[in-house]
């Protein structure tokens, strides 16, 4: 009797897990079908199969989601078949990349520089597959590299933070001229962010103090929150976070402490409305979409490096609209004007933003 009950329970669990799996595949396909029908173009499948390997989880409202937005756009507009592989640990990243290689995809996109080592190791064994890596440069006949001038965008963010920390009439802004910066993992691309941030802040105020911390993980918002609160307790009143899912904790920390944060990658201004001054938007979505498009069009070129800058909209600050609404009369319009002015100077080459070694135009 007991065994029978057990077998019934187990069978039910098995059925449920199958239903679960079936359901999970659906959302990836339905948007393709529905938008395809409504727009009426490129409705039929182009037959191109793309796999994106993430170092972290989707749902970070930041880097990974931005990349996924681009990929989903390609699904909708170009009718590609998309597979997303998420992974939290280094072992998972290599395994996922290898699984993608073996899966016979036309294009494999490595979403972050954490995958650099593994792609270097394995890409040459799969010469018929196109590879693309974002945020770093790998040499190889079948690899396209896309990197961003995050130092330029961060320069503007740093300048905005440096001006903001002196506006003591705004609630939560203290006397100390200290700003903060919290990163996810200590990897080269984050130093490229930080160098720009520091230079931007010091451009505005050479005496400014900048606190820097790394969480050591992309997936621990509580750690991000703790680091952010620690920086606030040390006198900072605005902290820029560059940390994927860890970053949701950074924004939450700012809200809880009644202080301010700067978002990253996607427009995060509305995530904790009123506590996010601006976001340094990095158009990972465009990079991802254009790479997929090049494969669909047959124009993919291996061994090439794209460098997306402030000038071509690869990076930018948001329009400050959300914080403007929350601060009302106290909103410092001069920050926006100054940032626009600095952006023009960077584009014109009057200000040269430094790069971390290995980054910058090739």
């Amino acid at each position, binding site marked *: 009797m007991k065994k029978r009950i057990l077998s019934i329970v187990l069978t039910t669990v098995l059925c449920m897990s199958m239903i679960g799996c079936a359901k999970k595949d659906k959302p990836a396909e339905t948007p393709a079908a529905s938008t395809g029908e409504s727009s009426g173009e490129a409705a039929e499948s182009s037959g191109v199969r793309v796999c994106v390997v993430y170092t972290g989880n989707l749902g970070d*409202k930041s880097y990974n989601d931005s990349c996924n937005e681009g990929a989903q756009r390609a699904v909708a507009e170009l009718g590609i078949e998309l597979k997303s592989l998420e992974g939290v640990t280094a072992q998972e990243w290599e395994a996922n990349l290898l699984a993608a290689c073996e899966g016979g995809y036309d294009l494999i996109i490595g979403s972050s520089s954490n995958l650099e080592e593994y792609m270097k190791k394995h890409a040459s064994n799969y010469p018929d597959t196109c590879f693309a890596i974002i945020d770093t440069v790998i040499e190889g006949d079948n690899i396209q590299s896309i990197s961003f001038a995050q130092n330029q965008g961060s320069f503007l963010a740093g300048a905005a933070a440096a001006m903001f920390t002196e506006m003591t009439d705004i609630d939560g802004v203290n006397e100390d001229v200290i700003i903060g910066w919290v990163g996810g993992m200590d990897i080269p691309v984050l130093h490229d962010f930080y160098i720009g941030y520091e230079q931007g802040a010091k451009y505005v105020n050479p005496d400014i103090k900048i606190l820097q911390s790394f969480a050591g993980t992309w997936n621990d918002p509580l750690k991000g929150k703790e680091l952010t609160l*620690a920086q606030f307790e040390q006198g900072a009143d605005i902290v820029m976070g560059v940390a994927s899912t860890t970053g949701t904790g950074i924004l939450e920390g700012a809200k809880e402490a009644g202080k301010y944060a700067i978002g990253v990658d996607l427009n995060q201004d509305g995530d904790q409305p009123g506590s996010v001054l601006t976001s340094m938007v990095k158009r990972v979505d465009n990079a991802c979409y254009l790479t997929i498009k090049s494969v669909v069009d047959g124009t993919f070129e291996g061994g090439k490096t794209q460098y997306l800058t402030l000038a071509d909209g690869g990076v930018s600050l948001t329009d400050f609209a959300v914080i403007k609404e929350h601060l009302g009369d106290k909103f410092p319009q001069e920050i926006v004007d100054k940032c626009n002015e600095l952006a023009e100077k960077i584009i014109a080459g009057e200000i040269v933003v430094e790069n971390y070694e290995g980054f910058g135009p090739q």
Partner: protein
Amino acid sequence: MGLFENLDKIFNVSLIYATFRASTPIIYAALCAALTQQANILNIGTEGIMLVGAFTAVAVSYITGSWFFGIIAAMMGGALIAMIMAVGHIKYNSDICAIGMGINMLAIALTKFLLSVMFGTTGSFANPDIIPIPRIHFAFLENVPVLNDLLNDWCFTEWFVILFVIILQFLFYKTVWGLRLRAVGQFPMAAQTTGIHVNAVKYQAMLISGLVGGLAGAHLSLGYSTQFVENMTNNRGFMGVAAMYFGGANPVLTSVGCLLFGFSDSVGARLQAYGLPAQFVLMMPYVVTVVILAISMIIKLRAEKKRESSLITNEARG
């Protein structure tokens, strides 16, 4: 930006609360593990119980709009998971480590699955409709300089953990139930001969442990932050188990171990800002874990040796 002229910024009053804030989830986790450890069950599934609790708390708080129901549901969820372990371990004699690790993996996958089924998102779920556990504000402390920074606006569950440590300490060492629990853990056969239902006590310990683990999760997702993120426990359950070993399942000593973790974490967070290498600072909690475990093992071995030698002399006398 020298380290030494900024010592006052690193070691200030707010460090005390920061330490406590970072420790609280680990204390709950450690108490969850301590409860079963007293009955000689190593609750390696603490991590999984917490994660399920964290998810349930957010889901129920979002749906009902009540943090209280969120906590209750999280405790129920934790208890349910703990009972699965209990039945597997006590009734069917499966290895607790195997089933505990199974529970941990199940919790990660199950919460990920439910997140996408119930809320249609992946990765994380944050929403203004999630009602957090309230913070307790003492109006009369507002004008008291140090105490205001120190004690105001603590989360309800942060106050409760202090009370709870005391309650458990009393329960373990001053009540009949505690005596029975420890008897079952130390020498089940002797306990049985005195008429204690060994398995019933073990089930009770697992059940309460599950309730506490669920509360630990609720504190993570509704108290410490107001969101659910995949695998948001991030090994805090395992750190709790380590702290439980340090304290030998004694609630007060265990909490001291947790506070050490929290302290190393909080000091690290401050030191990093002044140019200490991130890799070194991030290593600190784990170094502390190893050191703490080593120290507690040495103490335990010494105590055992002492006990042995006194046993021999007693036998010789007898």
